[in-house]
């Protein structure tokens, strides 16, 4: 028993050491200045004839041409006629074919999608072609709690360990995927009704609170420390607010159930999909809970989505609630992520709000708002270069940069295949052929 605590400490130290060794992405060292672009910084008004300077993977200057001093040794890139905005942040994606919980139980907090992501899936390439630079890769919605999600940056690297976002201690960052409504209803041990769904969730959170009480009661007394329970530990991260709940939900009553459970247990939550958001926008805003929306071409496809429309973004915005968008890739195509925000504008959302909902708002919903989501000095050099207005159907993503590295270049034949499709585009990363590490491509 004595060794239990030490074992925990050892594990943490090991994780930190290992991640310290592997999480050193190749950063572009020399300064690069993009000159003459239309800049959309998000945290301030658009800048005409702007200059963006990046160095060692970070943004070092943003402003008008007459205000920004370009370092002498900087590489100058003429970006006249182009639009530069922050890399798109997707709060909800299934690229990489990752899966977490299996069919054995409706609540599986200790299972992580981290252990199943295929980084060579062509979906990641398509996401970069759409301007996505960070995504919350989620398990599915067929469970009340289908496991831990992982925040992935699409940086140069060969393994998931290099792609994943980490905290200062080197621990991978991610949330907890939950769902209510019809997707998680099936034969026992899964719930058969909405009431049972909520009851099962309550039962697990109550158990986690008991586990915490036992830990606290034990204090330093090793004899009393309960056996480690990884599922309970993950639930405690949720209850402590260090692991955000990303909650699939559609119907207005299911949305209210989440707000009620949150009230009871105090977890932090982002509502996902939220088809009926327009019906309970004031309630969502009053709770101060952010929403990540998906907009699709037509209503229906399932009973819960019968009232989904293009209006929810504008309605939530007017109610004062935080709004982001997500692809739910493969439900919608990451290559067309900008289109979703444009449809929200069509449905009444402000242009500014819709741009923020692709960048800073989703970054904040993943607690990454101080690192990414705007063209701000000190933030990561994650950005997208467009050949026109972000909301125009005729606009193309020309380049996607991550950590100061050019990760997608439409003028490159191979990258173009990921952007528009064609023969071989469906193959999982076979295009590079044998023996090439991904960061070398």
């Amino acid at each position: 028993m004595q060794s239990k605590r030490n074992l925990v400490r050892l594990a943490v130290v090991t994780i930190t050491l290992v991640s310290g060794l592997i999480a050193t992405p190749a950063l572009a060292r020399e300064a690069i200045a993009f000159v003459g672009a239309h800049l959309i910084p998000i945290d301030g008004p658009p800048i005409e004839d702007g200059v963006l300077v990046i160095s060692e993977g970070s943004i070092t200057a943003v402003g008008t041409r007459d205000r920004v001093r370009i370092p002498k040794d900087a590489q100058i890139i003429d970006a006249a006629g182009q639009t530069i905005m922050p890399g798109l942040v997707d709060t909800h994606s299934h690229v990489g074919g990752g899966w977490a919980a299996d069919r054995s139980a409706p609540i599986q907090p200790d299972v992580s999608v981290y252990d199943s992501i295929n980084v060579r899936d062509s979906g990641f390439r398509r996401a970069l072609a759409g301007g996505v630079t960070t995504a919350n890769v989620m398990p599915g919605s067929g469970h009340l709690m289908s496991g831990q999600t992982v925040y992935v940056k699409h940086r140069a690297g060969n393994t998931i360990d290099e792609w994943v976002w980490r905290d200062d201690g080197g621990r991978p960052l991610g949330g907890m995927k939950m769902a209510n409504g019809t997707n998680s209803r099936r034969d026992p041990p899964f719930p058969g009704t909405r009431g049972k769904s909520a009851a099962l969730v309550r039962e697990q959170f109550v158990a986690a609170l008991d586990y915490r009480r036992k830990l606290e009661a034990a204090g330093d007394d090793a004899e009393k420390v309960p056996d480690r329970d990884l599922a309970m530990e993950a639930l405690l991260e949720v209850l402590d607010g260090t692991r955000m709940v990303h909650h699939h939900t559609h119907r207005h009553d299911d949305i209210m159930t989440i707000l009620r459970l949150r009230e009871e247990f105090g977890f932090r939550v982002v509502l996902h999909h939220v088809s009926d958001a327009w019906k309970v926008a004031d309630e969502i805003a009053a709770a101060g809970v952010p929403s990540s929306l998906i907009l699709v071409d037509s209503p229906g496809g399932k009973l819960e989505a019968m009232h989904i429309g293009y209006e929810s973004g504008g309605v939530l915005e007017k109610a004062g609630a935080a709004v982001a968008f997500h692809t739910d890739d493969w439900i919608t195509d990451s290559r067309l992520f900008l289109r979703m925000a444009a449809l929200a504008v069509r449905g009444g959302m402000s242009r500014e709000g819709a741009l923020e909902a692709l960048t800073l708002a989703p970054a904040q919903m993943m607690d990454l708002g101080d690192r990414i989501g705007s063209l701000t000095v000190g933030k990561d050099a994650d950005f997208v270069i467009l050949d026109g207005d972000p909301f125009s159907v005729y606009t193309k993503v020309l380049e996607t940069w991550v950590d100061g590295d050019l990760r997608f270049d439409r003028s490159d034949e191979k990258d173009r295949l990921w952007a528009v499709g064609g023969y071989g585009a469906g193959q999982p990363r076979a295009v590079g052929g044998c023996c090439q590490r991904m960061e070398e491509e």
Partner: protein
Amino acid sequence: MLHRVIVVIATLVCSAMVMAGDVAVRAGRLHTANGPVIEDGVVVVRDGKIVAVGPSATTPVPAGVEVIEAAVVTPGLIDAHTVVGLAGYLNQDTDQDQLETSEPVQPELRAIDAYNSRETLVDWVRSFGVTTLHTGHGPGSLVSGQTMIVKTAGATVNEAVVKPAAMIAATLGEQATRDGGKPPGTRSKAAAMLRAELQRARHYLDKIESAEEGETPDVDLRLAALGRVLTGELPLLVTVQRHQDILTAMRIAEEFNLRLVLDGAGESYLLIDEIRESGIPVIVHATMKRAAGEAENLSMETAGVLDREGIPIALQSGYESYVPKTRVVLFEAAVAASHGLGVERALHAITLGAAKLLGIDDRVGSLEIGKDGDLALYDGDPFEYTSHCIGTIINGERVSREAR
């Protein structure tokens, strides 16, 4: 009593009549689809038919006719292949009538027996300017049934119908195969079964042809339906994605001298010469269709490539099994326009080009005198995501008004 009968009959006749209205539309930009864009143009519709089209300065609007204004006006849009009206938006077993899986070959299934004219998605696509649908039995069985052509207005299918039988729908490739040892289990078996059915239908037609009076064979609805593609009355619509399956469809069409329409045709860009020389038209997959499974290699540039090579094309919303339950052909054309097809040709592919491919260009597809008064009204470039459709007119009646 006689009076009441007459009233009832009159009511019945009226309700079965297609509505027809008088209206004039003045457009900042008028796309006629059969000529150059007219700046500040006018279209006049009387009794549901177009009676005048031209610049507003020289095209008078008869007194008393309502004038609707819009920034941009196009012919009513045509979705060249969909399952809207048969595949309901709720996606429950009870509202899914686009695919009957009990048998692999059922050409006798008629779309008109399943089309729900009041389905939510009919209203939905109409609110984006779509006025004509080629809809019916969908992909997924070797021969799934018949398709039809309808307008997106009309309380009943009788009011909506343009062509009760348009094509016979078939599928080749993995999507046509079945699990559990049920035939067809392979690509080749699917092709062999299709050949056998066509051969049977040919014998049936021959027997009818050569029968002595009073000795005609018993009616076989299945073979009679398939016989309509052998006589050339109906095209065979074959949904295929892989290049080898496209060639199989073309091979069978040649063997039986069928009118073939290729549907989907994800890898058709590998067979440009073969398709062009055959003269076969292609209803290209939805531009934003998911690149997965047999369609993993599809390209958003295919429509543009085929069109440039002189292959007749039209665009479609296609079939969706989940969310979104349907795509909107306006949006599919928009993305094709921005991926090499260009605005004018993309518009052509969902108006006159589609009408010609479907054989309905005597009625719809362009703004010409004598054609149906079907128009789509927009507050800007119809293809821009942030524009709105502000009205849809069918047979001179305004059937959608809300800005969407």
